[in-house]
């Protein structure tokens, strides 16, 4: 560390000496020296305070890279050649620093952009020098082709400018898709310095034309780039201040909030933080609402901090990967959370159990639906067909009978008996499962129901897209049961049935103009309906004021 600091100071002193020896304009030369110092010093502080972080090392490297390019001020051809070769490398080092903040590592699209930057800034720069660019002190010149050198240099500048702008886009996108765990003010500060990259890109293009504004933009860019590491350092070290928020966290958690997440998000300054519980009974991680959750893969953008008790995991914090640099903060938050997470864990376990019960109820109802469907098929293909065959035979027999009135009477009675059985079976089959529903949907099926209702029914069916069959069957039974009740108890003169699908919900409403006062607890029919509707995650409500008619309303989700 001390060696690095000494080297930094030496490099700065050398740069100053070189600048003084040559005829460099004073202001930009001072700015170049300042940039170099700013990166090296910030990097050293970062390394000291955050030894785990790769970012400090990167800052130091960028600082020395800037120092190397200062060698181009030297009159010594060797030093000049080395400096010139590194002239644009420093641009990519800056880009690397910006894209690697705060972890010091590159991820996603940033990686190929920076790699391409290094390839361009070294490869093309050396090509320009081989072609004899940058004057007589260039020791690398092999051929003297100034025109070609100019063209390659222009390509290099344009390519670097494009890559820098691509880096800005990556930063902007990253900001949109979940930011870093920083305080708002600090994040704004860091974001503001991304403008330095934009101005760097502009500067590279202006370098092509050497226009009048070049000097102003150059100075501005150097100032901004020189201040950037200070902002980064503030962002990096801001976590130290976070320690004070542990006290607040403990106070907040003592108040036993139902949901610990908001307090954790404040303490960690990571709005995306999640707390998941380990439920040994289900051998599964679940979130606050008991919904099974997966822990993120190591090495991704999200990291996990385990909360353990007696060596067993009881919960886990899922947070931004950059927070892993702040081990002490995470450990403190995890310890504070461990003391109070039992309530949340019980709640999550309860929710998971509820979900399991709901699922098994839905399975029971679904199994019932299948069984009813099978029974209806069996009836249709079995008993009903046989009875129809029997009644047909009786019909044929009747046609061939003689005039004996007693025999005729007996056959006629038998036919009537069979007809009555068929009629009853038909009602049973319909009640078991409305076969027409699977083929033709609610509108057609309800038409028959309405036609056979005890009172005139006004039907309004607006279901442009057919929902799942279980939803259709539930809606169908709601209407059937409601119309049956109206026929039995309501003393109504008319009823209306409204079935409408809006988005992912089917609304079913049956109203009548009868006496009202329906006892919703007494009828097992309504209770069974409520079970059926609720097993699909829906709701069933009945309004039945005495003398005011009855309204049954079901809402069935079908998303």
């Amino acid at each position, binding site marked *: 560390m001390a060696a690095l600091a000494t080297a930094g100071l030496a490099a700065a002193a050398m740069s100053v000496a070189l600048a003084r020896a040559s005829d460099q304009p004073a202001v930009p030369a001072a700015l170049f020296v300042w940039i170099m110092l700013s990166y090296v010093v910030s990097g050293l502080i970062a390394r000291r305070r955050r030894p785990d972080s790769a970012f400090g090392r990167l800052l130091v490297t960028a600082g020395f890279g800037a120092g190397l390019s200062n060698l181009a001020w030297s009159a010594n051809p060797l030093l000049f050649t080395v400096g010139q070769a590194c002239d644009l490398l420093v641009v990519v080092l800056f880009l690397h620093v910006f894209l690697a903040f705060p972890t010091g590592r590159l991820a996603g699209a940033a990686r190929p952009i920076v790699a391409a930057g290094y390839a361009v800034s070294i490869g093309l720069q050396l090509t320009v020098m081989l072609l004899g660019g940058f004057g007589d002190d260039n020791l690398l010149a092999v051929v003297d082709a100034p025109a070609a050198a100019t063209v390659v240099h222009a390509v290099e500048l344009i390519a670097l400018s494009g890559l820098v702008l691509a880096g800005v886009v990556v930063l902007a996108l990253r900001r949109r898709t979940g930011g870093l765990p920083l305080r708002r003010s600090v994040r704004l500060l860091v974001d503001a310095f991304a403008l330095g990259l934009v101005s760097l890109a502009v500067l590279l293009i202006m370098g092509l034309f050497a226009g009048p504004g070049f000097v102003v933009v150059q100075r501005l860019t150097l100032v901004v780039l020189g201040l950037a590491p200070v902002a980064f350092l503030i962002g990096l070290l801001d976590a130290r201040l976070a320690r004070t928020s542990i006290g607040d966290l403990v106070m907040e958690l003592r108040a036993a909030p139902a949901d610990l997440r908001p307090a954790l998000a404040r303490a960690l300054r990571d709005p995306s933080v999640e707390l998941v519980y380990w439920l040994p009974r289900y051998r599964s991680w679940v979130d606050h609402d008991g919904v099974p959750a997966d822990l993120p893969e190591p090495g991704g953008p999200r990291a996990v901090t385990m909360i353990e008790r007696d060596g067993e995991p009881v919960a886990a914090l899922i947070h931004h990967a950059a927070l892993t640099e702040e081990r002490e903060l995470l450990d403190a938050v995890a310890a504070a959370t461990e003391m109070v997470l039992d309530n949340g864990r019980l709640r999550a376990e309860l929710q998971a159990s509820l979900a399991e019960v709901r699922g098994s109820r839905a399975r029971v109802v679904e199994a019932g639906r299948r069984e009813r469907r099978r029974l209806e098929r069996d009836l249709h293909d079995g008993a009903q067909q046989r009875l129809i065959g029997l009644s047909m035979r009786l019909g044929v027999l009747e046609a061939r009978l003689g005039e004996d009135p007693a025999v005729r009477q007996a056959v006629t009675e038998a036919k009537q008996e069979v007809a009555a059985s068929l009629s009853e079976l038909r009602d049973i089959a319909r009640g078991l499962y409305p076969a027409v529903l699977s083929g033709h949907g609610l509108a057609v099926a309800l038409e*028959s129901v309405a036609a056979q209702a005890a009172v005139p029914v006004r039907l309004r069916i607006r279901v442009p897209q057919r929902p799942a069959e279980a939803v259709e069957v539930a809606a169908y039974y709601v209407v059937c049961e409601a119309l049956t009740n109206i026929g039995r108890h309501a003393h109504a003169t008319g009823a209306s049935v409204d079935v409408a699908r809006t988005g992912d919900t089917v609304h079913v409403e049956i109203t009548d103009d009868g006496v009202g006062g329906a006892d919703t607890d007494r009828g097992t029919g309504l209770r069974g309906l409520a079970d059926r509707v609720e097993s699909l995650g829906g709701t069933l409500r009945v309004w039945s004021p005495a003398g005011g008619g009855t309204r049954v309303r079901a809402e069935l989700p079908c998303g």
Partner: protein
Amino acid sequence: MRVAIAEDSVLLREGLAGLLRDAGFDVVARCGDAEALRQAVAALAPDVVIVDIRMPPTHTDEGLRAAVEIRAAHPDIGVLVLSQHIEPALAMTLFADSADGVGYLLKDRVSDVAEFVAAVRRIGAGGAAVDPIIVSALVSRRRPGDPLGGLTPRERDVLDLMATGHSNQGIADRLFITLRAVEKYVSSIFGKLGIPATGGESRRVLAVLLYLKDVNGGGSPT
């Protein structure tokens, strides 16, 4: 009269065939599913087809779909659809454009042999047969105040028989009244309901069915 039968239950298929043969029909095809019926219709050009609404493979409505297709492709072939359940909306799809040579009956109707045979014959000759349950389902849903309420009980009887597809003579025979009396009732009914008096008997079946459907106010399948 040449008949083709499509019914997946062997018991019923053979029973129907025997019943129709005894009544003097020529049963040219006995099919177990809708596909076999389509082939029989193409090859044998029967006068009437009798088709079960629910057949393999899906056991939902392949019989009805085959019936609608056959009617569209061969308007001269009469089509009688048999069902174990009464579905007014499905029946109305069958009668959507015309009631010429088309019928929809509950399977139970086979027990009244004479009546059933007469219906098949009527359909083969271009007439109509609508199951009485469909008519009464449509009529029973009338709303208070609609013109149906203005019909006399006798006129209601005539309307029901007319809607099921009976001719004036058939209505006269059933109600034990004269043909002239039936004609009087019919024109009175049409006057009260505001249905234009049209010529053919199957056309008036359609007119009455559509009237009853409209009275019931919407409920059209979507």
